[in-house]
């Protein structure tokens, strides 16, 4: 499955949520589907997207937060899974796109390519609900289940390593400035009550 197709399947739900993504292809592809003021793309600080999401979720329990993580990023902050599990915010869904690759720096294989199981690591860390999916329909269903259950959920989504940059995102750089995104997102949350 292409990650872009996975993102398309859940885009209507993302539009209704506060979304924090990692850098690279995930950020570029989500923007290609349509940027929203409730989307924040953490374009560096690898590993910390889940920590940013946790901060928002704990401070604003009325918001629904979706973190779009990746295998390379999550492997840089596996301890963060134990922190997520420890506080298990009910308003956070943690989606991990696993392409078994550090794509944006040249496609070097990560440890998930040799068998490390991120859903298993999340479950063993104490995340109350974890699942692994391989189709867009299953991802969509898993996200709906997670939202309805109101329990912290990690969904690992196996996606293709192959990547076609969306139009206007050569080298993963889009025309949305990092600080423009940061201030727009802060302003959006300031006025937001769900």
């Amino acid at each position: 499955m292409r990650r872009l197709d996975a993102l398309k399947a859940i885009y209507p739900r993302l539009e209704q949520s506060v979304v924090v993504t990692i850098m690279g292809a995930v950020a570029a592809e989500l923007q290609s589907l349509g940027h929203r003021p409730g989307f924040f793309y953490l374009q560096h600080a690898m590993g910390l997207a889940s920590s940013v999401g946790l901060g928002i979720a704990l401070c604003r329990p009325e918001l629904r937060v979706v973190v779009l993580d990746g295998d390379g990023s999550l492997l840089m902050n596996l301890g963060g899974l134990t922190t997520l599990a420890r506080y298990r915010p009910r308003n956070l869904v943690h989606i991990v796109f696993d392409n078994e690759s550090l794509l944006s720096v040249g496609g070097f294989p990560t440890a998930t390519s040799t068998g490390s199981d991120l859903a298993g690591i999340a479950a063993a860390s104490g995340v109350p609900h974890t699942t692994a999916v391989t189709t867009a329909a299953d991802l969509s269903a898993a996200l709906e289940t997670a939202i309805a259950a109101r329990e912290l959920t990690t969904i690992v989504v196996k996606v293709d390593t192959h990547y076609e940059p969306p139009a206007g995102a050569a080298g993963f750089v889009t025309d949305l400035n990092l600080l423009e995104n940061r201030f727009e997102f802060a302003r959006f949350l300031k006025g937001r009550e769900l």
Partner: protein
Amino acid sequence: MPVSVESSSIIYAALKANGVGLVSALPETWLVHLIRMAEEDDAMILVRLAKEEEGVGLSMGAHFAGVRSAMLMQNHGFLAAINGIVSGAQLYRMPLLMLISHRGEFGERDPWQTEGGGVTEHVLRALHIPYLLLESQDHVEHRIRKAIALSQSALRPVALLLCRDLMWED
């Protein structure tokens, strides 16, 4: 344990008086009372971390959510958090209040703390992070207040070094 309860109380009161609503922390001897005070305070969100760099992400999320935060860590935790500070807080112009227990300075008896103590201020300067030392109780309230004011207006990290003469009662 000769960690000063009185100094810890003054620091905690200053954080509260200046609107801090979320504290992230990794345990360290000098911080035990501060962490306990945060834990016993129903109005404070305490997040115990696995590694200090997570705290930068937590503070970014808290800022987005409209909540002032503070990171409690040892200077080795600060050293462990640097990528997040640079490529998260500095890149995205985030206010970040770091309270760093300044181990490894004069009087340090633990050999393993001594390297970190010697480099902490140099690293803060290299990162252009404004900082002040908290060496006595009369430093605490106004320096915390001013540190938060600068961090919120500049939208940048600031640091306060919790020093031995404040934190430790020999």
